[in-house]
């Protein structure tokens, strides 16, 4: 592949350069991911542990007075684990980007790429591919463990579409941080806000059963819309689907700007 050095991420680039760079980075990212057990195993095992712990360990919560969910508690928790895995696939790809900066690889990449926006796009494809592997495994385990799906095929398409958007939300945030700090030490800054947003949503029971400050926090938390929509789609009883899609698309736009402005900052940094 021919890569012409450029000082600007947009000006004077060959048509198709964006995708050439993106696909090359995506191939390299997935090649590395699959070949390194220290990367692939934690990303597969953690969602399964969360699923086992929440769906298995907390199944009694399905009997709490006032809790109703047509598809059962396993499906209720599956949606949380799916949203979390999706966002964390994006986050972990941000870690990879930060690590590539720390090792000097990303800097060399910046010199070689004919359109540097392709770098951001390439890692986004890596995030989506990693999430596809993780979510396939989590779904298979959930089905084997007896998860019921009462939504139809279109609902499921919507569910996985929402998961794909959440991958990009997580990645957009983490990539913006990675481009700005260019060190793996910024990991907690990538992880903590996402972790908090996810856990300040109705994780264990529905919003109506939450009381006190967490109810107030969950009521204005976009992650609540994601969980409500996901649970609605898996059970076929739609709840806040349009709101969730709107929130996810809005966040992707916002974090897209955050990522690209981070890329500009990385380009101009000494």
């Amino acid at each position, binding site marked *: 592949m021919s890569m012409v050095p450029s000082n600007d991420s947009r000006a004077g680039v060959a048509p198709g350069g964006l995708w050439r760079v993106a696909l090359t980075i995506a191939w390299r990212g997935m090649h590395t991911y699959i070949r390194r057990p220290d990367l692939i195993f934690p990303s597969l*095992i953690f969602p399964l542990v969360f699923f086992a712990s929440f769906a298995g360990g*907390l199944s009694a919560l399905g009997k*709490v007075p*006032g809790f109703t969910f047509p598809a059962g508690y396993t499906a209720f928790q599956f949606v949380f684990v799916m949203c979390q895995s999706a966002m964390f696939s994006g986050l972990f790809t941000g870690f990879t980007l930060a690590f590539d900066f720390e090792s000097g690889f990303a800097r060399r990449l910046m010199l070689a790429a004919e359109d540097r926006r392709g770098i951001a796009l390439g890692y986004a494809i890596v995030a989506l591919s990693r999430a596809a592997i993780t979510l396939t495994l989590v779904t298979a385990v959930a089905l084997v463990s007896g998860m019921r799906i009462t939504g139809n095929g279109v609902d499921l398409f919507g569910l996985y579409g929402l998961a794909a958007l959440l991958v990009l939300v997580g990645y957009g945030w983490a990539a913006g941080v990675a481009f700005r700090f260019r060190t793996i030490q910024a990991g907690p800054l990538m992880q903590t806000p996402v972790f908090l947003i996810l*856990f300040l949503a109705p994780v*264990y029971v529905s919003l109506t059963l*939450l009381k006190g400050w967490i109810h107030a926090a969950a009521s204005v938390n976009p992650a609540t819309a994601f969980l409500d929509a996901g649970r609605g789609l898996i059970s076929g009883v739609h709840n806040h689907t349009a709101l969730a899609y709107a929130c996810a698309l809005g966040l992707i736009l916002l974090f897209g700007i955050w990522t690209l402005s981070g890329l500009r900052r990385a380009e101009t940094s000494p």
Partner: protein
Amino acid sequence: MLSTQVNVLARRSMRKTLRQPFQLFPIVFFPIILLAVNASGLKSATELVGFPTRSYVSFAIAVAFIQGAMFALINTGTNLAEDIESGFFSRLALTPLRRVSLIAGLLVGVAAIGALQSAVYILIGLVAGTHLDAGFGGALVVIALGSLTTLAFGALGCAAALWTGSGEAVQGLFPLFFVFVFLSSSNLPRNLLGTGWFHTVANWNPISYLIEAFRSLYIYGWDLTALWRGFAVAAGLGVIALLASSGALRKRLQRT
């Protein structure tokens, strides 16, 4: 004298943790944030038939002591691995210090940090509305058990650092221990773990008994069965970890 050597190394070990905000922050704030989130999110579990208390925060605070001990494992192991990587440990081994004091000093410091962090969790818990049914005496037992648990986990961190000599490898243990906490009676009492296989795993998981010992003092008062099981697990884990540390130390000093 051995006691002087242990004392000096214990103070160094304590200062190393207390002076580094990035080590202190997770010990204090991470368990408290998780407690706040879980206690609020899982409050409705208290409405289940058979749940032992109406206060979920009193039920859940036990997990904070275990999480604190897990951070001690990481901090102790990372600090020791740093000493190994920087060559400080090898220089220390060349001094007339007795071998036993190399580890004992570190672990006495860890136990003191464990007692301190347990006292902090008790105070924060009281502010958050926990009720310690066993009273002041129970608080002292919580501190003693917290200190012993932290020492046991810290010794595991030492063993890992001595075997691998790598801070990164020690950090890799953290998720493994998180799995043990997740697959225990951390969120619900064992009698309410409805899923068969999960109930079996929680029954075999020693972390369940550690958590239940702390929890018993908050909820039931003086439950001697829960207490002896908790102390036995902490002590057993400590003995295993010390044996592993001792073997790893011998091997490392031979290499040195």
